[in-house]
């Protein structure tokens, strides 16, 4: 059993940050107070379609060139059309993999962003089964 004391990170998570348009002067009420805008919500910024958005964990180094590293959190939107050049989660031999989708004429391939991994070519005429489109990467710098 653990005794729980609220820690600061939890409180920080609960905080919202009102966005002021100008500096707030100390000492007297600022006329700018009338212009306070809504608090910024990170969810709103990165999640456009909540019921179609899933969080996925990246593993391995095949997408390092796209800024996706081992352990990063990927935000995946299934409602978006997978088009040429987007980073997608795709199905290959029953496994889900994160790669960059390439569609040249009618030829699909899944490109890694690391020279040590060859692209995955699909047979002529075969389509890639795309699970979702990656919209953001959350990378921990600590």
């Amino acid at each position: 059993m653990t005794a729980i004391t609220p820690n600061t990170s939890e409180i920080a998570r609960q905080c919202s940050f009102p966005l002021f348009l100008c500096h707030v002067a100390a000492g007297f009420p600022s006329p700018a107070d009338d212009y306070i805008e809504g608090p910024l919500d990170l969810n709103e910024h990165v999640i456009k379609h909540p019921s179609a958005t899933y969080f996925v964990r990246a593993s391995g180094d095949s997408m390092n060139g796209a800024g996706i590293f081992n352990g990063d959190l990927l935000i995946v939107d299934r409602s978006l059309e997978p088009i040429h050049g987007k980073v997608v989660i795709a199905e290959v031999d029953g496994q889900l993999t994160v790669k960059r989708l390439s569609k040249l004429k009618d030829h699909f391939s899944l490109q890694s962003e690391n020279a040590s991994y060859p692209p995955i070519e699909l047979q002529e005429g075969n389509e890639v089964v795309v699970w979702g489109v990656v919209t953001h990467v959350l990378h921990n710098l600590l």
Partner: protein
Amino acid sequence: MKVFALVDCNNFYASCERVFDPRLKRHAIVILSNNDGCIVARSNEAKALGIPMGGPLFEQKAIIKKHNVAVFSSNYQLYGDMSQRVMDSLRLYSPDMEVYSIDEAFLRLDHLQPRNLYEYCKTMRAKVLQWTGIPVSIGIGPSKVLAKVANHVAKKQRDDGIFDIRSQQAQDEILKTLNVDKIWGVAGRWSERLRLMGISKASELRDASPTIIRKHLSVVGERILRELRGQSCLDLEEIQPRKSIMSSKSFGNLLTKKGPIEEALANYAARACEKLRKQNSQAQRVYVFVETNGFREIDRQYNNGFTYTLTIPTSDTRSILEVAKFCLSKIYKHGYRYKKTGIMLMDLTSVSLEQKQLFVDLNHRPGDPLMGIVDRINQDHGPDTLFFGAQGVTREWKMRCGLRSPRYTTQWDELLAVS
């Protein structure tokens, strides 16, 4: 004319498992009950192998091994979240919607021109599949009962997963061959009585005299008859707060000592109280029961229950825990091997509709803010982050769920991993 659509997820639990593990496509899947005892859901492939619904797992061991059937414990966190996603996607298609169960919803689609309706449902179906990965079937009808019938046809006979039963011709054709016990609301108890009246097919019930049906099957039966005629009697229902809350599960192993049973009961009580507070209700009566395993013929059998009525209704876990413990002490007997205990909270009232009491100061209720804090911590940090001492630490009674897939959408450390 009213237009109802019944949207039903195909093999919902199995479909949820497939979304996050594409290897399971076209693979036979079964899902087990709480405690991994019985089979509660099957994919089409598992149905085709003849694996029965509700059967004990051990009876199917051979066939499961032979056909390499994928077996999962219930992953209710995942199914609950996916259900929410399906329902939220559907809500974009109609402002009037009734979530009927975890995998079914009724939608009113009256605002649409008939010629657009099929296309509209096709788009809706494609959208749910794209957003959630869950395939659905859609039945369209002039009443809820007929929409339900149409859904049955859509699921079994249509490749596009959609069936519209609004035309008289379609109704005649389908109801002629449909057995009455397949009709929503009829089920077993009435089908026998109807058979004795010479009614075995849905069309025969539809064409029967409403007065006679009313005499035999009450006004509820008459409504079903009228709904079969395409006269809508059942409207979409708003979600009503539940009138009683039950929390009960079988133990992982049979228990004989009072301590672990008390501990399990405390956990079910805490869970029930959480649900109670979530719907802003409080309970006045508490019912506790114990059961031995009726299937073990060598064991002596004992089942008993006890009800306690509180002076004032409460939603405070501490009060309920005290009452639950007291009830258990009234019914627990030494010398039996217990399989199950449970608690039911009854006589629920809304917190806002509270009766004033002459001798009790209702304003003096130190529990309420505390319970709110407990609920919030457990919501933010995961279930059982904060729990009552009575709930115990080791929980040796805990049920098995050894084959559960990761909770892909509700736990940070169980997210889907892709390389």
